[in-house]
């Protein structure tokens, strides 16, 4: 991506290193959408995502001196956001009990409906997953982590990681099958 190698970004990062509040605000706005989309898929609500987003950006601004400017800022940022989300998840699993939902077999989905679903609605489906399914699905499918890496990060076995991914997919299929045209119209009206 040309944006993180641009002179504008370098100038912004320099300003952030000097703790210039205006530069920090501009950097925040510039990467708000990108970072928020990461946070949303690891949380169950926008409020929760906002909390992780600001925790992540706080780390960015206070630890910016550790950023290697020869590398991609966007990758560094996404890593911080994911790690912050995982910290949040680890705290959460101490409180929550996973509800191992029963998944219906052979769920049929109307593809014409899916094609019309908004990105926000698909994100809401991910958010409706249990924390364990949501995190494994996001790490594996969207952020490209291997099952070994996921197992390490979440302190679970590789088998559990694969199982959670499989069940997350089934759960998403089930939710997609329940969406009909009427629901779509209601949501997007």
């Amino acid at each position, binding site marked *: 991506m040309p944006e993180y190698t641009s002179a504008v970004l370098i100038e912004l990062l320099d300003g952030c290193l000097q703790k210039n509040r205006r530069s920090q605000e501009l950097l925040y706005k510039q990467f708000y959408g990108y970072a928020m989309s990461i946070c949303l898929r690891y949380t169950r609500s926008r409020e929760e995502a906002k909390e992780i987003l*600001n925790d992540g950006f706080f780390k960015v601004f206070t630890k910016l001196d550790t950023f290697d400017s020869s590398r991609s800022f966007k990758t560094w940022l996404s890593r911080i956001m994911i790690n912050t989300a995982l910290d949040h998840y680890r705290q959460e699993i101490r409180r929550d009990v996973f509800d191992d939902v029963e998944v219906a077999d052979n769920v049929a989905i109307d593809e014409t409906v*899916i094609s019309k679903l908004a990105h926000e609605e698909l994100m809401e489906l991910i958010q409706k997953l249990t924390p364990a399914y949501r995190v494994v699905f996001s790490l594996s*499918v969207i952020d490209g982590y291997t099952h070994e890496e996921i197992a390490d*990060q979440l302190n679970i076995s590789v088998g559990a990681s694969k199982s959670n991914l499989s069940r997350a997919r089934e759960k998403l299929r089930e939710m997609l099958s329940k969406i009909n045209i009427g629901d779509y119209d209601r949501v997007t009206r």
Partner: protein
Amino acid sequence: MTELPDDELDKLFRKSSEELDPQFDPEDWNSLSKRLDANDGKVAGGWLKKWWPLALMALLIPIALTIHYTSKSPEPEALPIKREVAGRDLRTGRDVRSGMEKKSNAKEEDKSNVVENNVKDIITDNRVRKTLPRSQSKAGGVYLEPNRSKGEGGDGAFSINNIAKSKSAKSVMANNAVNEDSAEQEISEDQARLLISATALASRTLNWENQPEIPMVTFTPPAVSEAPKPEKAEVDYAKWAVRLGYSPDLSTVGFKNYTKPGTAFSLLVEYGLSSRLYLQAGVVRSVKDYTANAGEYKLPKYVTDINTPYDVDGSCTMFEIPVGLRYNVVRNEQSKWFVGTGVSSYYAQKERYDYNYKDYIHGQKPYWQGKTGWFLLSHINASVGYERTITKKLSLVAEPYIRIPVKGVGYGKVNLTTVGMWISLRYTPAFK
């Protein structure tokens, strides 16, 4: 209606996630901005909370200086007069001595002329024209003349009636009068009683034949270069002093990875070994925030067996016992420049070390918290300072300092260097 395969499902959500662009909410930034302000100490309350001692000093210093300079009363007029009298005495003493030396070699007339001239000098000099009341006759070491009335076999030089009637006494009164009316007034008996003036001697010839033998007094006037030092220098040397100080505490390992400064408060007692050399000891409480690279922090094996952090953020509350010497290099009445050196022992009261990892490994240790106690003679101290007198007992001290590690302190045995600047109030008790 078909079943969606895994790869299609993944692709759907991946694409959706990549193309999702949540709208910016200014409230989110406001929330983070406030948090950053608090972290940077930009919030007014936060700034005051951290730097209130400096703010207090900034408030007190101008007030103290204003009080000091406005309350400085002018020196009493009597003092220069006293000095003049003393000077005159010295001069007279020198002249008398020369007259005495002449006594053995020169004629009697010469002697009386010398004394007469000296007396006339005293009379005509405006600065010593004031008459000396009998009640203060011994003040300033002036010798009270014995009663030389005629009734006592004297020449009547100090007879009250004579003085009251004498023209010279009137002329003295006229010279001292502030207006013409008072100059014309007759001298009352009471005034005359108080007027014991050398003017009475002006018209008289000294009778050297009838003089009692006066023992020879050798007077050696002090050389100008040996003039007594101002009393201030002597008074300034106080045996005991107490200092209450504040300093920002900038701690570092290897002079890199500086973090925001901590705070330090000190209570020091000073004992004067001489006017320039003081022994210092006391207690300092400080909060030291610093970052150490993994190599500079002795990581326990149970930590590195799982994962090795790339650096460690330390935050320690320490008590320090400094013992040292202070030497006043430059001493003026109002200020001093000094250097100091000594050793410090530390007591680690509360420690927390956060381990920062590049990659997460399950089971890694996030931090260590506890206290490790005493580290005796772990640092060498050096400082330079400036002291400014505010009042006789109170002065203000600015003293940049450095604590150089001799051995490691804390759980990670880090070689912690601390720099800062004491802003202290120094109080000298009444006893010396």
